[in-house]
């Protein structure tokens, strides 16, 4: 789409003839927007919705209120080349921003550089800012942010981003009165194409509604169609806690940053206060391996010593498994709630597996199975996947959960064919580090530890489904059995009479054995009638 000029970071040395400029983070994104999901108008339209919705979900959860999000998209000007001038506005009930905070939050590409670990919606995510930046560079129009904390003045700012400097430019600032409740509203123009992005967007919102059942989402699309995803509960899962890094999860660069940020005096103090799972004894052992005295002043650590410390942390193998309280799974009840809300199944069962660990990262798997209701046989496995509460829409068949589902012998659970019955599977993984297989972050790799959890999860759900199916089927089959016995014994009687000339008293036998059930055995055609031995 863009000339190779946008391949920006050739570290070549053709200094002679060219002016060299440092590149800002915003500029980098501008030049590499494809990797962030903005490579064409269709994909960009979808990515903008997704980034802004996740931003809003985060803001509401941060505020501790069930999210309420309203999205409106219009076609402002139809263009010939298929990508139109679009406007999107989104309003949420999340934590509001003060006048100072607005430009910083939306006016530059930035990061929160906390030195702690917490579960976050882990898309490739460049946040709402990238969505706004994309709008700016395709339309040259400013975007507008309105926001307030409850009871404060509402600030409304019209802004642009200076891409080369990565600085917000506030074009206009208005104060609009007192806010009755906290909120943030964003309005932005962009060049996009709704028609082909529509299915993706609706799919995304629908699946988000499943995994965030406590959210109210409304989407008015450019054709004026309103999509409503009302919440079914006010209950929210507990917020994830923050925790220190596990020593196995750091690299050298991060170690150095932690050292710089630490207020500890000694190296030992640093270890104990900057990491989880390091107490006195462990710290001593690690330092012994590194050959560093325990009372060494942190500020005096030489480069070689830092490296030695790093290698010691890597080779030490007695750390306890990482803390999983940083994780925030949805929970059995909420997951079932979300599924019931959107699919209205006759049966649903969810399970939350106990925390587990892979490569030093804690994770929790949740699975569910639903049957009947709005679920119809689809001729393929119906599998909904989520990672850190975000739907995964593509490459289903490459996902570990799909492979696991394929590998299970479902007939053991009374299911003839997963593809041909009204069954939907659900898989949710939360982790501080989701094991995505690719940069595209659309599917989970077949990490053995994860595989195991998914399989155990599916099997637990399947056992419940089996019981359910057994109950509903048993009732049908009892009556059918008596009916079939009567018919088969009629044949037996006729054939025996045909061969021997005498009819056996099958009626007596059946009455004796079935009693009333035999009398009442219903009619009704059936072509299978059991299998040959």
């Amino acid at each position, binding site marked *: 789409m863009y000339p190779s000029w946008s391949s920006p970071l050739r570290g070549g040395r053709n200094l002679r003839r060219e002016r060299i400029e440092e590149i800002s983070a915003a500029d980098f994104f501008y030049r590499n927007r494809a990797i962030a999901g903005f490579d064409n108008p269709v994909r960009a339209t979808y990515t903008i919705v997704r980034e802004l919705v996740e931003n809003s979900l985060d803001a509401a959860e941060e505020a501790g209120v069930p999210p309420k999000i309203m999205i409106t998209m219009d076609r402002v000007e139809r263009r010939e080349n298929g990508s139109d001038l679009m406007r999107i506005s989104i309003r949420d009930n999340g934590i509001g921003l003060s006048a100072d905070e607005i430009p910083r939050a939306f006016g530059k590409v930035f990061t929160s550089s906390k030195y702690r670990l917490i579960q976050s919606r882990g898309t490739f995510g460049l946040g709402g800012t990238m969505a706004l930046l994309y709008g700016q560079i395709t339309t040259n129009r400013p975007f507008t942010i309105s926001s307030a904390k409850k009871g404060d003045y509402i600030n409304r700012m019209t802004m642009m981003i200076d891409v080369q400097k990565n600085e917000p430019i506030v074009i206009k600032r208005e104060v609009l009165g007192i806010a009755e409740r906290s909120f943030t509203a964003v309005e932005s123009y962009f060049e996009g194409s709704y028609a082909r992005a529509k299915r993706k967007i609706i799919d995304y919102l629908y699946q988000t509604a499943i995994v965030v059942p406590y959210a109210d989402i409304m989407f008015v699309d450019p054709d004026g169609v309103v999509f409503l995803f009302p919440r079914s509960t006010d209950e929210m899962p507990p917020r994830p806690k923050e925790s220190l890094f596990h020593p196995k999860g750091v690299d050298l660069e991060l170690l150095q940053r932690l050292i710089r940020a630490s207020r500890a005096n000694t190296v030992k103090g640093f270890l104990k206060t900057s990491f989880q799972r390091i107490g006195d004894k462990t710290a001593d052992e690690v330092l012994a391996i590194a050959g560093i005295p325990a009372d060494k002043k942190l500020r005096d650590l030489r480069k070689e010593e830092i490296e030695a410390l790093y290698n010691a942390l890597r080779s030490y193998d007695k750390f306890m498994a990482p803390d999983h309280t940083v994780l925030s799974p949805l929970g059995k009840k909420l997951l079932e709630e979300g599924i019931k809300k959107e699919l209205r199944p006759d049966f649903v069962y969810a399970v939350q597996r106990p925390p587990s660990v892979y490569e030093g990262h804690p994770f929790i798997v949740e699975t569910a199975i639903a049957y009947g209701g709005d679920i119809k046989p689809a001729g393929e496995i119906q599998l909904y996947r989520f990672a850190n509460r975000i739907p995964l829409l593509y490459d289903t068949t490459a996902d570990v959960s799909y492979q696991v589902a394929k590998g299970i012998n479902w007939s053991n659970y009374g299911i003839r064919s997963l593809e041909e019955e009204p069954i939907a599977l659900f898989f949710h993984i939360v982790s501080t580090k989701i094991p995505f297989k690719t940069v595209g972050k659309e599917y989970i790799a077949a990490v053995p530890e994860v595989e195991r959890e998914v399989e155990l999860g599916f099997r637990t759900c399947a056992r419940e489904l089996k019981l359910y199916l057994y109950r509903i089927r048993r009732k049908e089959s009892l009556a059918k059995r008596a009916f079939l016995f009567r*018919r*088969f014994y009629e044949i*037996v009687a006729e*054939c025996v009479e045909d061969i021997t000339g005498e009819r056996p008293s099958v009626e007596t036998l059946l009455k004796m054995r079935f009693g009333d059930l035999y009398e009442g055995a219903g009619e009704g055609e059936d072509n299978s*009638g059991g299998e040959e031995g």
Partner: protein
Amino acid sequence: MKELVREKIIQVARKVKEDIDKGMFPELVYPPNSKANIKFLEEKGYLFEPKSFSTISGDRVKSLRTLSGVLYGLSRALDHLENGLTMTKRDFYYLHKVQKFKGTLFPKEQRETDARIILMELLLGMPREAFSITSDPRGWIYGDIELIDRSGRLIKANEVGEMGYSVPPRPENITFKRIGVKAVVAIEKVGPAKNMIELGIPEEKKIGIAILQGQASRNMRRFLRMLSDEGVPIAVLTDLSPWSLRIAATVVYNSINSAHVDGLAVPEARFIGIKTDDVEEGFFSDYKFALEPLTQMDYKAAEDNRHLPNLQAPIWQKENNWFLEKKMKAELEIFKAMSPSAKDLKKLYVEYLSMKLEEALGISI
């Protein structure tokens, strides 16, 4: 024979009646054609020696369906038998395609009713031909053999056409009147067999030619066994291929599929080639260029042959290993490659047959 069958069928039905009249779910006991009940003896071929037994019981739907199906099958068999009629497996299948059986015995596929035929064989301890279920016949016998067939007519097997006498689906109905041959050679392929007939070899050398036309059919195997029981030495002449080994072994030992049926093996029969020795250093050793390569299917068959019970004897495995090693086969048509001019063909056939019959059966022709 017919009386025996009839008695057996009535016996089965009566057992069912008695059970029912006692207020019990009826049960039928039979020896399944499982591995445990089948023995293989080099000198007898497959033997059916029931040691374990299965039960068809009227107490569960699935088993009850089988029970009523078997009884229906027996009633139809009896009916056909008494009316002098035969039926094919397909006929038997259609006998179940009856309106009133919808939801009970109406079959989805012929496989269902075919399985029931085997069950009937096991229950009665008789081949299906005994109770009127026959296959399309395949194979002819040519030579100085006089027999009386089902209709009671006298038939001379070298005077009923150039192929000889079409061996019928149920050779049991035949009685031999006079056998004027020293031996019968059962030949896999029509072409070479027909050439031998055309060259007058049966008359001149006093041998019978049985034309198998591929794998020996049940009727042909039964017929050869009957000849063997009459004291006629039987020789088997096939291609040298993985499939032909099976053809020869089936004639001699019967096959695993019909191992539960007596009277289909001809243990006295001898395989007279083509053998690997003939190709490697014997009769055909100068004509290796006329061998054919094994196809993938052929090769697969040779691999499977390593595990077939009736090919376990060293003499068969020796032949079979040759395929796996050389990946070649020899066909009976190789005689044509040896004698492009017809003049020499008779000499070659006679030479080969003389040598082999002498060697395998001690018969001079």
